[in-house]
């Protein structure tokens, strides 16, 4: 877990160096793509969970 985190941070600091990859069985994914996909999932969950305060709403 710490190793994976270090990889993520390492990638964010310099994107032009050699790529960082995570292997898990037959799955091999670049840290860049993993971050994008992870953020999409987090964004989706946040979008449906965060209360939406509306002005002048009536119900």
């Amino acid at each position: 877990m710490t190793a994976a985190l270090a990889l993520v941070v390492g990638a964010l600091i310099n994107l032009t160096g050699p790529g960082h990859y995570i292997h898990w069985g037959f799955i091999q994914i670049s840290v860049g793509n993993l971050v994008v996909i992870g953020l999409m999932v987090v964004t989706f969950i946040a979008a449906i969970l965060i209360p939406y305060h509306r002005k002048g709403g009536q119900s």
Partner: protein
Amino acid sequence: MTTIDRNDVEAGIGLPEDADQWTAKIRGFLMRTLPPGRLIPDRQPSYMASWIYIFGALTMGALAMVILSGGILSLEGPTWWHTSSVGLFVNSLHLWSVELFFFFMVVHLWGKFFMAAWRGKRALTWMTGVITFLASIGAGLTGYLSQTNFDAQWISTQAKDGINAVGIGAYFNVLNFGQMLMWHIMILPLAVVAITVLHVLLVRARGIVPPIELEPADPATAVAGGEG
């Protein structure tokens, strides 16, 4: 010939004797499907209360950024960004706008899927969304092929095998830079924008989908497929 005054002409009232005109029929269709209150609404049903609803607008915002940055790259041509620091920045802006475009589009897609947003005669809205996604993948791929660098060389020589295997490669030659650039800056952007416009007009014509209901509100008046 019946006379009609200027106000009635501009309001599109139309005389019975003009009703068989193509123009009058098209206007009548548009006014029935997209009256101003539907096309540019200032109110929405009260169930529209979630952040998930902004991802369609975010996707279009990113599309606008993609087109803007791509337009600037077009001004100077496909190899400008290798030698100019301004060009490199605009290229970076183009790349990240594309990443954002797909990012927001996928979140929008997930949201609409879990809302079963095709209900009530909205299947065509779903399908135009899927086609936009596919056209965007094509636009993204041809963009990668138009970079005039190692990436473009690598992706084109890898992509050719799959595309050749189903016969498309005979006509859509990913190794032909000129052809790919044309698809990337002309045909596919036009397709993405045109289908997006249709998608948005369908959303406006049908309105946003009401919440999932397990039973009809009133068995006597329930309409299969929604409002007709």
